[in-house]
């Protein structure tokens, strides 16, 4: 019998889920509050609302002004980080154990009763526009955003989380309040509390603070189909003021719930992760010396997420690097992985679990992933067997299903004028 992490999970009467785990490395506690309020919920014509919420939710509540909140957190050495992904709005921080009750109270105030003062909304608008302007000058960001918009079109995954300069100018306090009321609700909240604190006490504290919170049902956007690419799509975004060129190359793939997920995950590890960038790193960085970075990532999500290959290369090597990506992908499609590669990637992914679960932030992030995808409280114990069950044929099939250079979407951003093969 393997002990495993064995976290505590309790669902309060109003639907708030509390996840808790005691650790004793440092006299500190990490909190992550995840709300199902990500950028997929942005109105199609107004991208950026969820991100705007993440920049303003902690800038004033019914009880505290922005300055009072800042003072309360700063005086305890706490940085509250708000961030938004496609499906979640997340508030995370670490505090000393002695400050837990106070800090949990402040986080709850921010989650439940933000007031979005107009002056703060206008101030943060300037910050967001500046962030968008910085992205526009960043070839890596431009390459990935362009790739996502080409892969997903009007599907929510194709939109920029930060929105556009035009949409951000239109977002106002009422829109933020409406979004908050609709999506920041008890049923959509999962709170992870990890650190030197008794789990039962963490659950009690959460019940005291969140127990009376009311709200409608949580909704999430799922099941929207993604059109599959037909033919190779290419785009060059010339940024002649830059030194290095960024390549983003990808496909839309599967959901996290797909039965083939573990085969895909191992395929991704072999292709562009294992050691320094898998097969791609070996060919493009180690053998050919063309790039400082090259790797692949798989984001299987509630809806079919992307497999993205990224590389930063000198403009003179763009054509050669793209051809090398094509070659490596085709090899994996044609012949699948070797037994040894698969074995090594399995050992790596299984063996890295203790490292993933070493810190409070690592455990809290893991608990939120398990909760979000419904993987089960014993997922850390189940995961090794799920990976061990994958055969070379499974990975080969995943490669054949996911990858096809003839139908790849390829974006190049940087000091490069094309053409792109």
């Amino acid at each position, binding site marked *: 019998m393997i002990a495993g992490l064995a976290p505590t999970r309790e669902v309060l009467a109003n639907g708030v889920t509390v996840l808790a785990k*005691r650790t004793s490395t*440092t006299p500190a506690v990490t909190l992550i509050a995840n709300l199902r309020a990500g950028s997929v919920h942005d109105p199609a014509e107004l991208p950026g609302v969820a991100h705007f919420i993440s920049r303003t939710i902690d800038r004033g509540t019914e009880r505290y002004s922005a300055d009072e909140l800042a003072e309360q957190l700063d*005086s305890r050495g706490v940085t509250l980080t708000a961030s938004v992904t496609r499906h979640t709005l997340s508030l995370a921080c670490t505090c000393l154990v002695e400050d837990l009750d106070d800090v949990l109270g402040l986080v709850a105030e921010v989650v439940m009763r933000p007031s979005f003062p107009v002056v703060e909304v206008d101030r943060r608008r300037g910050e967001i526009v500046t962030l968008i302007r910085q992205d526009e*000058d960043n*070839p890596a960001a431009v390459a990935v955003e362009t790739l996502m918009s080409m892969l997903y079109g009007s599907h929510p995954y194709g939109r920029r989380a930060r929105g556009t300069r035009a949409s951000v100018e239109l977002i106002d306090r009422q829109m933020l309040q409406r979004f908050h009321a609709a999506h920041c609700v008890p049923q959509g909240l999962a709170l992870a509390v990890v650190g030197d604190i008794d789990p039962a006490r963490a659950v009690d504290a959460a019940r005291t603070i969140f127990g009376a919170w009311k709200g409608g049902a949580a909704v999430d956007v799922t099941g929207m189909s993604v059109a599959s690419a037909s033919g190779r799509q290419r785009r060059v975004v010339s940024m002649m003021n830059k030194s290095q060129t960024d390549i983003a190359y990808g496909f839309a793939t599967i959901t996290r719930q797909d039965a083939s997920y573990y085969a895909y995950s191992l395929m991704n590890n072999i292709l562009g992760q294992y050691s320094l960038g898998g097969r791609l790193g070996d060919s493009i960085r180690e*053998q050919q010396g063309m790039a400082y970075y090259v790797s692949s990532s798989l984001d299987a999500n509630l809806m079919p997420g992307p497999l993205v290959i990224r590389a930063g290369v000198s403009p003179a090597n763009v054509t050669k690097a793209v051809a090398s990506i094509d070659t490596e992908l085709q090899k994996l499609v044609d012949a699948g992985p070797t037994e040894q590669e698969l074995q090594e990637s399995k050992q790596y992914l299984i063996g890295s679990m203790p*490292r993933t679960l070493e810190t409070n932030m690592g455990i809290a992030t893991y608990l939120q992933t398990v909760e979000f995808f419904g993987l089960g409280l014993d997922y850390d114990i189940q995961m090794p067997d799920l990976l061990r069950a994958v055969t070379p044929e499974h990975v080969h099939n995943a490669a054949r299903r996911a990858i096809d250079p003839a139908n790849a979407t390829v974006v190049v951003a940087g000091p490069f004028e094309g053409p792109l093969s």
Partner: protein
Amino acid sequence: MPALAPPPQSASAVHEEVLDNGLRVLVQSVHTAPLATVWCWYRVGSRDEIPGLTGVSHWVEHMNFKGTANIPRDQIKGIIEKYGGYWNGYTWIDQTTYTETATRDALDHMLFIEAERMRSCLYDPADCESERTVIISELQGGENDPEQLLDQELTATAFRAHSYRHPTIGWLSDLQTMTRDDLYAHYRRFYAPNNATLVIVGDVSRADVMRHVVKHFARLEPSDVRRRSSTIEPEQLGERRMTISKEGTTAYLKVGFHAPGVTGDDFFPLLVLDTVLTGAKGLNLWASFRTQPTQRSARLYQALVNTGLASAANGALMPTAEPFLYTISVTATDGVSLDRVEAATLAETERARAHGITPQELQKAKNQLRARFVFENDSITNIAHQLGFFETVASWTLYPTLAQRIEAVTIEEVNRVAAHRLKPTSRTVGRFEPIQ
């Protein structure tokens, strides 16, 4: 429940031993997870480079991942990964370091790799050539980032003589002309037990660790490092200014002041002053700068970000062996002129210089730093990093005393340091002005 670990910031938890060949070994048992971490540190960084060879330390770091006498290049991959492990390395101005973290049963493999790396790397000429383009690609990736470009130019302007003036990545022409023999000579000179500190932290016993260390390292010969003392930077006699005019979307300001090294009397008072101005970051280069500083109530945040002039305002004081820079970096909000941002930034540094800080600000800064020192010691990787890092800039024994040193800082010290260090005559103002 795992047993409570000894407090990470306690010198008595650390076992120190120096082998006959000069290798300093630091061991700390932390039993909270079934993991072990190894960091091997060398006292060599871009500070040790001369014109024509800038960037050699960093390039050498890259070459030291490419196979050794007893580890063929194609077999490096997998040694640590089999144990779910992570490995990496970095080079900065005072140090070069290599690390592995994996399950504890990988300990012997990790130590074997580091012993091989110390004296037996191959430097195959073809590998050196292939890595040249990788390094130039890394340099070009850095140039894509206007803030990094500004940082590089500002440092080169603030220093006229000391070798901290050139970037760790090196200047492009040096990277184009350096030879395999240049790389190998640098490697052989600095990579030796008498110039290294080996740190092991994790779910291991001291005796077991030392047995493995002796097995792998005791046979290695020391080297004649011939360390030369650095040129002392002459006092700056007036404000320096530099501008980058380049196509871009966003304007950036960076102001640098000459700062003490980590052993200087002014270091901890200046760290407190930085916390009041731009918020607490802690002192762990591996961990702290990945989390936003605690800064919403800090003076520059209030004066710049909360007035809408800037979208970000940060400060940086790094623990270095010799006097380096204290820098303030500001991103102008879209549409706001850099002149206004500069005026508001310098008004705050002048205010601090003229009037100092308040007792309330002192207390808050101490609280913030105390919390950050706890947060940045949350993993064996971070604890081992700090022990080794401080040994390369001063002594590892400084690390367990960080919290006490902050506690001992007085308001008089902070105000004296503000008056002296923030003088307009010793500052360098850098501007990135985008051409649209």
